[in-house]
């Protein structure tokens, strides 16, 4: 069978014009599909950045919260109630809000301010410079060195600035796993200082971060929090909720879905049409093979191999081009939100397999129906 597949391979790749057209079609489709889905994955990942970076097992919040950025503050007593629930090992408050940093030229730059529990500093970032206890120093803030860091004029340790007209000082430079979605820098401080610096409503607890005693306690904690009128979600559930919001309640999901489907249809059209033409142009050759003694199964294997080889080569090229584009974009725009996930790759591969299957089906039907007698008659 290897020899038969080798014939199929040579018939395919030695027809350079057709093979190139097939590859271009699939590569283009894969690249577009990958680009769209990577962009979406990047946006979703950035949208959940605080959830990933904080690392809490359970998040307690107002049920109306849709994304981590639009927290709805809860009364302080909720924290005490949660702490008293059976199965809770500990629970700490988290502050999340937006403040305005005054730059040297007098302009203002919005910054995301995260207030960590004063006692435990639970959810703190890892430090590149400075000491963790310095966060308790007067007016102390950590700045996150990410793609947005330069928007605060790349401050060093010891730099002083104004935040919401309060005096503030950088006491450490931090690193987090994931940058935020909205393109603004991030500052960390203590929970109480954050409350002092940022104007707030009557209630100030954005989220309560909970660590259960064991994994078996999670369901019970979620149920009890629900009875209290609030929502408790695990880290994965919260990121899924955020993803659902962007996917179904904004235009983002449907737009990206449309682009992905259009890419798929374009790829399918180009590849299907070109493969069909390839088969039609070689139909007499397949007929001759059939007359010589090739079995139906062998002809099917040849066509499947040709379609699969083309599809996988195009898939690899498309994936490579997408990765290259993202890499180039990152060079220019460090906060460019696009990541290639295994899910994206799987989706694109699945679509390419469908393209290959449809193209093969058309080819196989044509070849199986060719009568060697027609070759004689020609």
């Amino acid at each position: 069978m290897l020899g038969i597949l080798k014939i199929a391979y040579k018939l395919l790749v030695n027809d350079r014009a057709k093979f190139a057209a097939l590859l271009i079609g699939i590569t283009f489709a894969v690249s577009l599909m990958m680009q769209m889905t990577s962009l979406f994955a990047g946006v979703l990942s950035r949208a959940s950045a605080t959830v990933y970076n904080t690392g809490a097992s359970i998040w307690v919040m107002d049920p109306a919260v849709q994304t981590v950025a639009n927290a709805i503050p809860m009364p302080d007593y909720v924290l005490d109630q949660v702490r008293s629930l059976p199965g809770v090992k500990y629970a700490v408050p988290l502050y999340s809000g937006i403040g305005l940093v005054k730059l040297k030229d007098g302009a203002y730059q919005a910054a995301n301010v995260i207030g960590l529990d004063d006692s435990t500093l639970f959810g703190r970032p890892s430090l590149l410079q400075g000491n963790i206890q310095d966060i308790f120093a007067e007016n102390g803030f950590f700045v996150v060195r990410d793609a947005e860091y330069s928007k605060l004029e790349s401050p060093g340790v010891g730099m002083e600035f104004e935040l919401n007209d309060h005096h503030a000082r950088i006491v450490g430079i931090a690193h987090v796993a994931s940058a935020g979605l909205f393109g603004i820098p991030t500052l960390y401080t203590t929970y109480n200082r954050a409350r002092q610096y940022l104007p707030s409503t009557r209630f100030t607890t954005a989220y309560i971060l909970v660590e259960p005693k064991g994994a078996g306690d999670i369901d019970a904690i979620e149920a009890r929090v629900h009875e209290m009128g609030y929502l408790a979600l695990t880290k994965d559930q919260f990121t899924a909720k955020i993803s659902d919001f962007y996917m179904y309640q904004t235009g983002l999901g449907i737009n990206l879905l449309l682009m992905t489907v259009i890419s798929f249809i374009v790829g399918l059209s180009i590849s299907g049409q070109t493969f069909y033409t390839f088969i039609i142009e070689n139909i007499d050759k397949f007929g001759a093979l059939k007359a010589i003694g090739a079995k139906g199964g062998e002809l099917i294997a040849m066509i499947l191999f040709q379609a699969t080889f083309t599809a996988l080569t195009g898939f690899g090229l498309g994936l490579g081009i997408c990765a290259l584009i993202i890499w180039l974009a990152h060079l220019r725009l460090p906060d460019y939100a696009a990541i290639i996930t295994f899910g994206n790759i799987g989706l694109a591969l699945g679509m390419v397999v469908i393209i290959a299957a449809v193209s093969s089906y058309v080819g196989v039907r044509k070849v199986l129906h060719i009568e060697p007698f027609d070759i004689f008659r020609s």
Partner: protein
Amino acid sequence: MPKVAIRAVDLTKKFGEGEAIALAVRGVSFEAYFGEILLVVGPSGSGKTTMLSMISGILRPNAGKVEIEGTDIWTLSADRLAEFRLKRLGFVFQDYHLFPRLTTAENVAVPLILQRRDWQDALAEARRDLEIVGLGSRSELPPVKLSGGEQQRVAIARAIVGRPDILVLDEPTASLDGDTGRSIVKFIRDEILNQSRCIIIITHDARILEFGDRLMEMADGRLTEIKAIGAGRAHERIANAVATPA
């Protein structure tokens, strides 16, 4: 008596349905023998190609049977019949139907590769057969770089590479000039034909009749005459023995 290679019994083939039905072959019976070249002639539409397709196992007759060395080929399954064609029959198509994307040697090796022979062994054997047809030095060229006569020789090499005992050639000289056509058929006569091989050639070319042992004439789907030709040739004994109209 010479050994029967092919026995066709009352072969009938019709195309179309109802009013549009056309009888392409009407009850043709004949035998072809090992060691002979049987030429099939007749005007266009006389049913030559249809008859040849039925005895080659690529067009199922509506009635009658085809026995090759005692095997009724139309009782075989599709895959068995394909295997039978692959091992017992060699085809030379009118338009050669060579693969332009393969080299000449690879083209010739196709039947061996379909027989699951090792790629390199098949190529080596193909090159040997290209030597036989005088194209040893052209084995790595694509067929489009060869002349019409050379392509015909490649098609012949492909037909004989699996050492089939029956060769079927459809208008082998149709696309060739007179001298080249004659030289091709002479080559078949001198180099390819042997006592364990039967060769059937459909032709319109009167210039190659001298290379046949028997001549079978068809008209309107019927076998009108089958007679010995090429008197004084080495295969005369066959002609004499079997020159009886079916």
